[in-house]
């Protein structure tokens, strides 16, 4: 394993896990056998990313979020790019977090040029959090898989790219890195310009992008589509598909935004939310307390609610934000929820 391709690494991982598994001695056991000694407390599940699924204890009942595939904020779109393979082609990729528009995208690797022309590009973003997002483009061209992954960071004022990677144009699909911080741009604005990068790690490669218009950490469109002083953003998007597998339950959060600045309200404790489903027989909605283990500044700006798919169908979850001092409704929105079998 002195030089490890990803194929080698994957094979070695399989072998490693097999050998570790073999090294574990597991005794047969039945449900009626004497209880195991208590070694640890496993009381609640910490979502690794705050907006994702969580489990909390509610009135001594454990709600286990499980078996749910949800299609929401992260993208997951397939975009067909016109034009012949290898020829410059205009591209426009968009997720809820990132827009990428260019008159031409070229990756030169393994003696070939990849443009995504004539290909269908799988477009994803890891929605991340306020400080981390990605744009992940994957397609097949010249008979191999090509990927362009961009990693973004942000602070209170700007966003920027921390790393770009592409595949190497070979069948084994190893990464080429174009490391370095670049494109620092104020939040709410797009970087525009031409890009010409030589690889810094992995095989030799070159990435050129013409007339790039790139924006990450996009401002939520609800600031434009809702009216009044405030807007409610569903952090999983305005349309959610819940696919129950075992017990169907899916967590979403809402954030109240000051529409003028399109930023979370400064005093979230002033507001509370009410959630109602247009058809509880299809999708039930429950307000959720803050799950344990989250950063202290997360829950004040992200109010949890839980969706439970009952039967296949569609429903609207109506979300109302109320100023607790005046009892006045300050914003409202609908989240479309589709429950699939």
């Amino acid at each position, binding site marked *: 394993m002195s030089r490890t391709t990803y194929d080698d690494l994957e094979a070695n991982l399989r072998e490693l896990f097999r050998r570790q598994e073999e090294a574990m001695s597991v005794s047969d056991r039945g449900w009626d056998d004497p209880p195991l000694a208590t070694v*640890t*407390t496993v009381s609640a599940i910490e979502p690794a990313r705050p907006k994702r699924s969580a489990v909390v204890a509610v009135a001594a009942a454990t709600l286990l979020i499980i078996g749910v595939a949800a299609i929401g904020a992260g993208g997951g779109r397939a975009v067909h790019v016109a034009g012949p393979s290898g020829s410059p082609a205009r591209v426009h990729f968009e997720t809820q977090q990132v827009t990428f528009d260019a008159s031409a995208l070229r990756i030169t690797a393994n003696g070939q040029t990849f443009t995504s022309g004539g290909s269908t590009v799988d477009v994803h973003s890891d929605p991340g959090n306020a400080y981390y997002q*990605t744009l992940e483009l994957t397609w097949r061209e010249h008979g191999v898989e090509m990927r362009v992954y961009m990693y973004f960071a942000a602070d209170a004022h700007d966003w920027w790219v921390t790393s770009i990677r592409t595949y190497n144009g070979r069948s084994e699909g190893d990464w080429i890195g174009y490391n370095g911080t670049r494109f620092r741009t104020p939040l709410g604005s797009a970087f525009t310009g031409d890009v010409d990068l030589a690889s810094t790690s992995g095989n030799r490669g070159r990435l050129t992008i013409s007339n790039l218009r790139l924006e990450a950490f996009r401002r939520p469109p609800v600031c434009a589509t809702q009216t009044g002083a405030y807007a409610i953003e569903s952090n999983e998007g305005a349309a959610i598909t819940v696919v129950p*597998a075992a017990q169907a339950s899916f967590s979403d959060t809402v954030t109240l935004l000051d529409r003028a600045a399109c930023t979370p309200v400064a005093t979230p404790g002033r507001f509370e939310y009410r959630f109602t489903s247009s058809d509880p027989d299809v999708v039930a909605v429950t307000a959720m307390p803050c799950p344990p283990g989250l950063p202290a500044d997360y829950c004040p700006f992200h109010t949890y609610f839980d969706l439970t798919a009952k039967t296949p169908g569609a429903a609207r979850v109506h979300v109302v934000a109320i100023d607790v001092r005046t009892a006045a409704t300050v914003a409202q929105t609908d989240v479309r929820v589709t429950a699939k079998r």
Partner: protein
Amino acid sequence: MAMTKPSASGEVAPPSDFAAFYRDAWPGAVRLAGLLTQDTRVAEDVAQEAFTRIYPQWSRVQNPSAYLRVAIVNASRSWASRRHTERMKLPLVATPMSTELAFDVLADAVAGLPYRQRAVLVLRYHAGLREADIAEALGCRPGTVKSLTSRALAALRKGIEP
């Protein structure tokens, strides 16, 4: 929380199919928990906790294996989040292969990964799950599985190559 089955007081006997499921699934559950936590000392407890989660839901569970897998992943994550002071690594079956040392280095690197990155590798390369199933087990989207896998493999490669 005691990691036992529900209290005997007032408890009805478990349905026979649950007992059978438990018996059949127990070894694999322990091994999955061991690989996820990298700690053989807690693997059985984590697996038992997962079964304890299923037990009260049993009559409504449509896909017990998927339910169990998610419960193990979540219980392992809880365990991993509480274990800040020590770094564990599972032992390897000793073989005369010349690559023993290299595998040991890889085991070190896997044990050093953040939990979610290790989990996607275990679920993919040990459990053989599809991306959608991994996303389901981790409670995230397939795109997140892609990026977690990419970062995990990149970190491993960086960790094992001179």
